[in-house]
């Protein structure tokens, strides 16, 4: 469905006050309001996914997960298979001696590799988060000084406020991240205040440079659009491909040039949609009709959601664009609830062009940050592997030194019989 048609579909619906969600808001009793308020509070508090957090941790700390799993195998599975190997004809003491080596080596490996990996991660996160202080101008590609890394800030907050609990730490980290980000956005807006929108160069809006788009939301959206198009084309032609062939077909269709063209288009589309929304909101909003606007936006959101689901079921490439609209509506509600009408005041006296410039600058900065985050995570995962390898000689030396001594001290009989056997 075309967006113009979509607009038509949601506008009249919003006007009808007594449709599903709208009615709930407009005739909301005090009691219902309280329920909603509490539901929002509880939803914030309830942890929605412990397992998800765990899996995210695995993805973000890949090398540490590797080390730990390998160690788990070495410490608990290997000894069993050594001690009860049906093919082995060794005597019991030799088996015990060999089996005991595994847990000891696992502990040493874990200590070395996890420690070094942790240090490496902290170092690189700190370097990225303080890249603006680097005298040599290094770390530009992973510059996160405009939105410092979570882990870096967390460590800092913990150090400066030892009495904080987890929630306080989380809130403080979020606050500092937001403060830094908006400060840099405002600085950038002030710097470019005298330039007109048309005068802004690629250097001013660094994000609109394709290389920096790689890995961002728009890039993903461009890829998704192409993927859906390929699928729909195949469907129209009545072709059925295997998963592997389909992957190949998508890869062939998603050439860098095409991705670039699409991504640029999507960025432009998004900033324009966002600007329109902001101006619209700034025009409409007054303290007394805040609730009504939220209700209208909720209505639009739920309509959009239905359209997204419909398009998704059909495999329609328009789903990408519909999703964008949905996100914008949601952000609007969020902002209204969080900051009230203050957020819209900024835009109330702006022309479309001025507002577009403001949005573009913001987009440029937030997306550059995303780009840097992508690079940082890639460097972290490959650097982790190299760093872990570099610890091998050291953990090796320690194991050679420690293992015979530990065995002699705690299992002298096994160690002795092994020695006498070797001496024979």
């Amino acid at each position, binding site marked *: 469905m075309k967006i113009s048609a979509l607009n038509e579909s949601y506008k009249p619906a919003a006007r009808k006050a007594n449709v599903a969600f709208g009615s709930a808001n407009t005739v909301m009793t005090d009691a*219902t309001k309280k329920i909603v308020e509490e539901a929002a509070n509880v939803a914030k508090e309830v942890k929605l996914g412990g397992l*998800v957090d765990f899996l995210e941790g695995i993805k973000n700390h890949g090398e540490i997960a590797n080390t730990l*799993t390998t160690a788990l195998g070495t410490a608990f599975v290997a000894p069993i298979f050594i001690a009860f190997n049906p093919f082995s004809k060794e005597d019991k003491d030799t088996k015990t001696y060999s089996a005991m080596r595994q847990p000891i080596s696992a502990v040493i490996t874990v200590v070395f590799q996890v420690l070094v990996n942790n240090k490496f991660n902290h170092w690189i996160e700190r370097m990225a988060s303080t890249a603006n202080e680097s005298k040599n101008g290094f770390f530009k590609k992973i510059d996160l000084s405009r939105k410092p890394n979570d882990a870096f800030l967390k460590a800092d907050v913990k150090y400066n406020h030892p009495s904080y609990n987890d929630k306080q730490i989380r809130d403080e980290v979020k606050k500092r991240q937001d403060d830094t980000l908006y400060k840099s956005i405002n600085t950038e807006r002030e710097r470019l205040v005298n330039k007109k929108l048309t005068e802004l160069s690629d250097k001013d809006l660094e994000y609109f440079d394709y290389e920096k788009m790689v890995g*961002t939301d728009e890039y993903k959206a461009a890829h998704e659009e192409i993927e859906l198009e390929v699928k729909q084309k195949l469907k129209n032609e009545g072709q059925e491909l295997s998963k592997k062939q389909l992957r190949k077909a998508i890869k062939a269709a998603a050439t860098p040039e095409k991705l670039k063209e699409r991504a640029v288009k999507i960025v432009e589309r998004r900033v324009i949609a966002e600007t329109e929304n902001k101006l619209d909101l700034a025009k409409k909003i007054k303290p007394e009709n805040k609730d009504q606007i939220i209700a209208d936006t909720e209505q639009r959101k739920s309509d959009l959601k239905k359209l997204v689901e419909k398009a998704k079921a059909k495999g329609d490439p328009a789903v990408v664009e519909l999703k964008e609209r949905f996100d914008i509506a949601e952000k609007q509600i969020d902002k209204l609830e969080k900051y009230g009408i203050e957020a819209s005041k900024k835009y109330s006296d702006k022309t479309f062009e001025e507002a577009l410039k403001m949005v573009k600058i913001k987009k440029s900065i937030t997306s550059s940050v995303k780009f840097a985050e992508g690079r940082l*995570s890639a*460097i972290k995962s490959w650097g982790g592997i190299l760093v872990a390898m570099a610890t091998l000689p050291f953990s090796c030396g320690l194991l050679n030194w420690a293992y015979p001594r530990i065995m002699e001290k705690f299992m002298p009989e096994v160690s002795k019989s092994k020695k006498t056997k070797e001496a024979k």
Partner: protein
Amino acid sequence: MNISKIANKVTNLPGYVLEKTANSKFIQWQAKENAISPVAVATFTTLVSVVSKDAVGCYYYVTQSLKNEKIPEEKRKFVASLDLANGILNVALQSVLGGAFGIKVGEYFDNNLSKKLFSVDKAAEKVKAKLNYNIEKIKNIKDINNMKPEDLKKELKKAKLKKLPKVDGAVISNIEENDDIIKNYVEKYAKKLLKKKKIASAGFTAIVTLIITQIIAKRIFVPLIATPMASTIKAQMEKREAANPKAAASASPQVAVTKTTGGVKESDKTPECFKNFR
């Protein structure tokens, strides 16, 4: 060049290396692929990490065996070839199993597990349960509206609540009626969770791949296959030795059997740490 310049260069080195790395095509490619298909990237990095460690371990085994003077010259190649066989088996089995299952595991996660994990309905249930729980708790506190603040604090502590829920007893029945509203709010906060879908899928793939390669392949299959394989190679070597008695005489008997695979018994020729990578 004076000392300060040299010191400057040394301190700049990590930054320089990092900058070069961040600009490299490989990291660019990785960042791009990670955005599109994090599952494939997670499988790939996990496999490269574990397999490369095994490969390095295998290299050390082989070179150490070939250089070890304690092993008679005729036996060295045999011992080294055993090390090599073990290493190759490890690398091959892990790559094949990890590669074959990696993507499939990701697909399984997307089709089955993620529907349960990322269900907004379930999250809404959770929130409703908590809401009910909170309401039930304050229901038992008598005269809550006329209570002194310190007494209220004590009562809340007794009820194990941090703060007073904003809903009062009278609206309990409304929770069911306001299903849609609650769900809507939950959806909003669950969105953060939904964003993690792909990352969680990648994490799940990584951990399953690790279990397959590091625990099943490396610790169960390889030792079981390698031991009979070692015996076969040993038998063949002995056949050759029988045909060539001169070489057999010069070899000391215990060295010939010093090595069986799977960590069952190993000579002290190899550094301990690399035994860890078997």
